[in-house]
């Protein structure tokens, strides 16, 4: 009996370690390439780890000014996330508490999110040419905000509906205006959902590729688009690809690490009421 239990536990650990390796290995491989010399990258049999950690691949990105694309991504993703969260949360509050737009309005909103980006990318391009928004921060920020709004509204509506109405009514009687209720009661109460939704919104804007590819040239190129520049017709710059990808992973890694507990709660939203 006891032996069976021990074996079961051991098997579970083995399975867990195996799964972890499968998921982490590509990241490890990416990181190891970014620190390798060209010889090591193309060595056969493969060099499992770099002989010596060297930062030359990163230094090149800084020297050539390619890292500015990380900055571009950071500006576009951050500003569009803040805009989408601000607008979306206010819309969600209105829908949750005043039934704005009737019962099906939020279903209609979320259906907008289901449009494949490729379908609208060229109309948007033509529009942006007219507006002079191609290759500008504002162009991508507006587009990402619009694209993320349905998701934010949908998620925040759920979180806001979970806030006991009494808390808001109590604040109203105590002397708050609707705006004060929104800022002083609704936002603090929905803080967990706010962070979780913001992270997913940020990640979408950070990783978005199609719009960024079509709507940028050289001024506000984002990092995913920049990575594709290293795939050449003659050869691929694996060292640069790896180093740039690693730099692009860092902000997401930091965001997820800081907000992990909210993310777990965000994913399990609605699973357990309480």
């Amino acid at each position, binding site marked *: 009996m006891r032996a069976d239990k021990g074996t079961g536990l051991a098997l579970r650990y083995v399975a867990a370690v195996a799964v972890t390796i499968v998921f982490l290995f590509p990241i490890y491989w990416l990181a190891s390439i970014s620190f390798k010399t060209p010889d090591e990258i193309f060595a056969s049999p493969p060099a499992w780890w770099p002989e010596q950690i060297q930062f030359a691949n990163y230094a090149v990105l800084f020297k050539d000014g390619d890292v500015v694309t990380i900055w571009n991504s950071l500006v576009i993703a951050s500003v569009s996330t803040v805009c989408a969260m601000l607008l979306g949360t206010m819309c969600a509050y209105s829908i949750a508490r005043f039934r704005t737009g009737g019962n099906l309005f939020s279903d209609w909103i979320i259906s907008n999110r289901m449009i494949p980006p490729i379908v609208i990318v060229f109309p948007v391009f033509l529009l942006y040419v007219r507006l002079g928004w191609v290759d500008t921060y504002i162009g991508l920020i507006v587009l990402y905000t619009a694209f993320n709004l349905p998701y934010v509204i949908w998620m925040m509506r759920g979180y806001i509906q979970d806030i006991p109405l009494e808390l808001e*009514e109590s*604040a*109203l*009687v*105590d*002397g*708050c205006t609707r705006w004060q209720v929104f800022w002083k*009661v609704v936002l603090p*109460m929905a803080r967990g959902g706010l962070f979780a939704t913001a992270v997913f919104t940020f990640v979408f804007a950070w990783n978005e590729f199609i719009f960024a590819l079509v709507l940028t040239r050289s001024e506000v190129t984002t990092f995913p688009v920049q990575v594709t520049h290293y795939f050449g017709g003659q050869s691929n710059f694996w060292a640069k690809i790896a180093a740039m990808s690693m730099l692009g992973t860092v902000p997401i890694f930091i965001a997820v690490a800081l907000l992990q507990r909210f993310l777990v709660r965000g994913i399990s939203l609605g699973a357990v009421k309480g």
Partner: protein
Amino acid sequence: MARLSIRGLHKFYGKFEALKGIDLDIAEGEFCVFVGPSGCGKSTLLRTIAGLEDVDDGAIDIDGEVVNTLRPRDRNIAMVFQNYALYPYLTVFENIAFGLRARKTPDTQVRERVGRAAEMLGITALLDRTPRQLSGGQRQRVAIGRAVVRDARLFLFDEPLSNLDAQLRDGMRAEIKRLHQEIGKTTIYVTHDQIEAMTLADRIVLMRDGLIEQQGAPLDLFERPATRFVASFLGSPQMNFMPCRLERRDGAATIVFADGRTLAFGAERSADLSAHEGRDLVIGIRPEHMSRALPDRPPAAGAAPISVLVDLVQPTGTRTYAQFRIGEVEVTVELPAHIVEHPGTTIDLLVDMTRVVLIDPKTDKVLSNGTGETG
């Protein structure tokens, strides 16, 4: 302090009419309790006073000012909610100070007033904690603190004790009453618990189906109910209702049950009841208005004897509830402990006929109330 006057108040939810024309006056400093079964409209009425629900027709007037269209914040009302409505992300201090801060009260005044309210409620030691770290009773105190800290003209309580266990509820009930005596503000309190209503109220407003069934001082309602509903709602255990016929026998108005048993009124009420003789009625007898007949003592004036076979005994410690049947109806009598200990015992009871009520079975209106006082 404030006077409240409500005239012709109607409230609809879609086609459902929650309030069907409420007229009500509450005097300055009065403790008024809205009581009634679930769905009777008592909470809706309270919420319209607070401004949390719009009114479809009628007027709510506070101190001579019609407040129908005023926002809740402009009515200067404080309200305690059923689920405490405390903000989990704020300390107890900030929870109590919330209303003052919303009205931009200077910080020194906030400190002073929160301190005073906390002292009054005995929660000074808890000011730095968060609501999560408090027990149910402590949370309720904080919620009351939030209300008293503001100099509101009207206090509203929406079933504030219904989430507490029985023992705590008794304690908090006494505290709320003491608090009202101390600060003397006009208070409206909603509950479905008739004991809370009886113990707290200067005036009870008993509601049913969106209308006020009867209002008045607690003992007035208890002793002189206007309808069968009022008679049955107040009092625990409930009043017993039995179909009967009123006849004149041996010169006295007499209740005759279907099984032939009788209860005769004394001379005084007999005269008053002559108009109803020969009618089928319902008699209402409170369990505590029956007592055991003592063989060595003559019955008091107006007491009618009846012999019953007990079929259920429920001792509560100080009192014992015994049940028996009259015809098809199960009747409960409240007796001192130890008088009857086993079902199957036959006992002789005396019914205090000065206190029974007679009800018209068609209209459910009380035709004749007792003349005696509940002692």
